C-alpha cells in the first residue's frame, strides 16, 4: 500500500505505452447498468475503440484503465480496494456516470461511501489519477474524452 502523500513515478515511455494501448477493466460498484451499457457501446463498430488500441480485458492484472461505474456502496468498498491493489501500476481510474463522479441521486443515501475519487484519496490514501465522467449515462464520446484526458494527465505527470 502506498503511503499518504507519496507520488507514483511514471517514466515517459511507460506513459507513452499506456496511452497507445490502454486496456480497460470494467468494475461495477452498485450500478443501474446504464453506464455499463454505454461503455459496451464504445466497443461497437460505430465507435470502434480498437482504432486507438483500447480493449476490454477480463482480468484486473491486464488492465491500464479501471473503469468504475456505480455509487460505491458499503459492500462494494472492500472489493473495490482489492481490485485496485491487483492492477499493476501505473494505471488510471475513470469514474463513470453521475453516481461514480458525485454520488448522483444517491447523494444522501446511508449505503454509499461516496464518489470514487473520495474513496481513492481519503480511504485508500493513493494519488492514482481519477477522471470523473458525469452524465446519466454519459455518452460514448464523453467516455472516450474522459479516457483521453486521463491518459494526458498521466503523460504530464512524468517526472
Amino acid at each position, binding site marked *: 500500500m502506498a503511503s499518504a502523500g507519496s507520488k507514483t513515478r511514471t517514466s515517459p515511455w511507460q506513459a507513452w505505452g499506456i496511452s497507445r494501448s490502454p486496456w480497460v477493466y470494467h468494475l461495477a460498484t452498485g450500478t443501474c447498468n446504464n453506464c455499463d451499457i454505454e461503455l459496451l457501446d464504445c466497443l461497437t*463498430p460505430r465507435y*470502434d475503440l480498437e482504432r486507438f488500441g483500447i480493449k476490454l480485458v477480463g*482480468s484486473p492484472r491486464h488492465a491500464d484503465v479501471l473503469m468504475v461505474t456505480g455509487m460505491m456502496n458499503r459492500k462494494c468498498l472492500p472489493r473495490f480496494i482489492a481490485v485496485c491493489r491487483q492492477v499493476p501500476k501505473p494505471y488510471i481510474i475513470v469514474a463513470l456516470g453521475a453516481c461514480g463522479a458525485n454520488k448522483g441521486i444517491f447523494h444522501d443515501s446511508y449505503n454509499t461511501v461516496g464518489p470514487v475519487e473520495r474513496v481513492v484519496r481519503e480511504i485508500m490514501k493513493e494519488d492514482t489519477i481519477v477522471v470523473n465522467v458525469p452524465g446519466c449515462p454519459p455518452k460514448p464520446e464523453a467516455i472516450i474524452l474522459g479516457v483521453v484526458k486521463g491518459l494526458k494527465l498521466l503523460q504530464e505527470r512524468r517526472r
Partner: protein
Amino acid sequence: MRYVLELVIYPGFIFATAVGLLTSWFERKVSALVQWRKGPPVLQPLYDLVKLAGKETLVSERANSAGFLLAPFLGFAGAIVASLILWNANLGRSFLGDSIVLLYLLVLPALAVILGGLASGNPIAILGATRELKLVLAYEVPLVLAVIVAILKADSLLLHRLGNTITIGSLSGVLAFFVALLAVQVKLGFAPFDIAEAETELIAGPYIEYSGPPLAVFKLTHAMLLFILPLFLVTLFLGGIDFRGLGWLWGILKYLGVVLAIVLIKNTNPRLRIDQAIRFFWRYGLGLALLALVLAIIGDQVGLRWL
C-alpha cells in the same frame, strides 16, 4: 558466432517477432473488417508489447513464483528455435529429422501455458490449464498423422524436401491439410477452439494472473506462433516458399492465404465446449487423418499420385 546471429537476428528472434507482429496486426485488422469496423493501426501489437513491458509484475501469494515467471520463457524459447528451423528449411538448409524436432518444439508453447497456469495458484487459471492439456491430447495425434501423410508424399523426413513437394495436389493431401489446419487453429487458441482462455467464462484462462513483462512474453510467443504455424502448413502441404526469382512473392501469397483462412474460421464460428472439441478431434479429426493416411499408403503402393 554465426549461430548466435542466426538465433537472435535473421531467421530467429527479431525476424520472427517482426513478421509475427505484422501477422498479428493482419489478424486483428481482418477481424475488424469482418465485424464492419476500422481496426487498429499497423504498429498496435508493438504498442501493446511496449506498454506491457513498462507495467509492474505482480506475483500472487499463492503462486509458485519460479515456475510462474519461468514458464513464459519456455514457450518463447521453443517458438524461436522452431522459427529458426522452419525458415532455414525453406532456405534449403535442412538436417535429418527436423520435421520431427519441429513437432516437438511446437508443443513447447502449449506446455508453457499449462505450466504457467498451474503455477499461478488461481483456480480459474488451473481450470484453463487443464483444458489446454486436454486440447493438446485431443489434437496432437491427428496432427502427427497429417504430418505423416505429408512425409509419405514427399518420401523424406527432411523439411526442405517436404517443402518442395506440393502435398495438397492429392486427395489424401487435401484431407490431411484440413485436419492440420484445424489443429493449428487449436494451437493458436482461436475460436472455435479458444476453450482454454475462453473470455466469457474463464476470463483469460491460464493468463489470468499474468501482468507486465511475463504477459508480454506470452503475447510475443503467440505472435511468433502466428508466423510459425501458417508457415508450417505452407511448408508441409502447399509446397513451401521458393526463393528463386519471384517465387517468394507466391510464397507470401500462400502464407497470407493460410492466415486468412485461419482468421475467417476464427471469426465465423462460436466456441465449442471442451467435450465437444475432444469428441470432434478424436472422432472426425482422427478419422479423417487415418483415412488420409490409408489413401496415401494405397496411392504409394499402387502408384497413383492423385490418391
